[in-house]
């Protein structure tokens, strides 16, 4: 039996790992996943051309209302977005949401701005223009980042807002995480945002970010899971985990979702899909850390499993 899915690119590495491993658990079912992007994933599940969709952002009410049946959001793993930069000697930096928003609004233009210096006493900040780098392609990373900025800066919310791509007030656009990482690496004085794994793989420095309780947090798998554990998660699982209230939570993080119909059309396929979902939320979650994804905390796992149990054949 073949189960087809399509959507987000961010979780693609772990999903393909799951499909591989699951083939050993249940050899009778095979998965075909196309990482065509979250927009494509949402469109395909709405058109019922796939058995499940995948998205880095929850579906809007508008899009859900177009669905022929009820669509469930199944969160799987989470990841962090980090602020990376290129300065001589790569000093450790601490930034807060307001400062980041002002940099991306083009209001803080220079590295020696007092607002940056205020949270970095002792750091050598050069008299140099900040070259802002952002994603040019629509992406879940941008969605998470602008969601965070919209929560921490009223001005950002009003001027740019939150989406997979926005009308950037300043800066240059790089294509993909690799484009932004490359741009920042190549440009002295640059600052941009990428997924955590791109910064660690490229050995680029990334800032500690002030969270909702006033602590400066490094992005780690633990601090992301801490954000998940304290985020306000409604019963439909369409949540945002940026600026989560936990003391140990890293504030710029987001989950990724699988999208499935609550009422499955094909009973045999639906049964296999549910078995797979249950497996991925339990055994699958244990593989997340190896691939640099943050697993769901126990409490959330249980709630999601209950919801999976409500899928009808």
């Amino acid at each position: 039996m073949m189960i087809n899915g399509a959507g987000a690119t961010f979780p693609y590495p772990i999903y393909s790992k799951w499909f591989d491993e699951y083939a050993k658990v249940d050899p009778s079912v095979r998965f075909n996943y196309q990482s065509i992007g979250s927009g494509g994933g949402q469109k395909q599940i709405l058109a019922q051309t796939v058995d499940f969709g995948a998205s880095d952002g929850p579906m809007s009410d508008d899009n859900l209302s177009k669905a022929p049946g009820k669509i469930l959001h199944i969160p799987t793993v989470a990841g962090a977005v980090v602020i990376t930069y290129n300065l001589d000697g790569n000093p450790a930096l601490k930034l807060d949401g307001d400062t980041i928003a002002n940099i991306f609004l083009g209001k803080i233009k220079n590295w020696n701005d007092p607002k940056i210096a205020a949270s970095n006493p002792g750091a050598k900040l050069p008299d140099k223009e900040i070259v802002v780098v952002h994603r040019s392609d629509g992406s879940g990373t941008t969605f998470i980042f602008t969601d965070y900025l919209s929560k921490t800066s009223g001005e950002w919310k009003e001027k740019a807002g939150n989406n997979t791509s926005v009308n950037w007030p300043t800066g240059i656009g790089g294509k993909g995480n690799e484009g932004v990482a490359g741009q920042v690496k190549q440009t002295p004085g640059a600052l941009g945002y990428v997924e955590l794994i791109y910064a660690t793989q490229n050995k680029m420095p990334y800032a500690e970010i002030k969270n909702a309780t006033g602590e400066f947090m490094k992005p780690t798998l633990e601090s992301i899971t801490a954000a998940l554990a304290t985020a306000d998660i409604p019963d439909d699982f369409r949540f945002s985990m940026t600026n989560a209230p936990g003391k140990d939570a890293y504030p710029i993080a987001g989950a990724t979702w699988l999208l499935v119909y609550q009422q499955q059309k094909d009973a045999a396929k639906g049964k296999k899909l549910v078995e797979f979902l249950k497996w991925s939320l339990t055994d699958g979650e244990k593989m997340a850390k190896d691939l640099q994804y943050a697993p769901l905390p126990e409490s959330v796992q249980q709630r999601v499993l209950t919801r999976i149990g409500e899928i009808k054949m």
Partner: protein
Amino acid sequence: MAPPSRFGDKAFQWLTLAMALTVVVLVVLTGWQLWRGSSLAIQKFGLHFLVTSTWDPVAEQFGALPFIYGTLVSSLIALLIAVPLSIATAVYLTELAPLWIRQPLVSLIEMLAAIPSVILGLWGIFVMVPWLRDYPFPSRKRLFGWTPFFSGPIYGTSMLAGGIIIAIMILPIITSVSREILRSVPDLQREAAYALGATRWEVTRIAVLSYARKGLFGAVILGLGRALGETMAVTMVIGNTPQIAASLFKPGYTLASVIANEFTEATTDIYLGALFEIGLVLFGVTIVVNLIAQVLLKTMTTSTSATRAVQ
């Protein structure tokens, strides 16, 4: 008894006609599909789409002007760089180069055409852009910084970098087509010019280039067609900022790039419609540019025959 050959001729004629018509049908279908996909955006924005500069997916306000500008300017820069280079290369290869060097050079140029554009783009980010930023750009700024075209801060990624990468990508096609055209110039032309005592340069200029003018123009148009639609490599070095700035050091954006960048993650209907309309605009720009080229070609040929008649 009807001769069997006549049926074969007819069948062949119909078959080729059908093939030729598929091309027309494909073009029409593409246009129609783009029109249908963008109908929502066309209804909402009308002609304003072509003349406004805001591209805001959050507020769902869309205008294509900076992208149209970026596509035309980057292609123009590419042509300014690539045309003299390609035609000079083609002249060298057909008229001047010693025989043993021709084949290796031709193979090298063809290899350039075979580099996938995404690879060229990565090379662009990691090698070309830093080099441009550190050496050629600052010196241009020192020399020409007083003009608006070379003013402002230098980031490397820029309209100029986009134009240069397109130039590299269209070099091979213009060179190889030009070379074929120069090779097809009859030797009689050259011999006649030599017989009149022309120098090598005069032979090349009068007997070869002038004779092949129309064909060379066609080669340039082929290159331009590629330049307008070039996507991946350009998007990696152009900076992807929808703005209209005189300075070539500022980042820009092209029609093809914005589609490639934003299509996969566009979730709302109007956003998708706007991206479809960008495709429609690109389709239109390509057709208009080609039509202008055809007209230019016409005037060029008639004026040539006119001068001939006078002589």
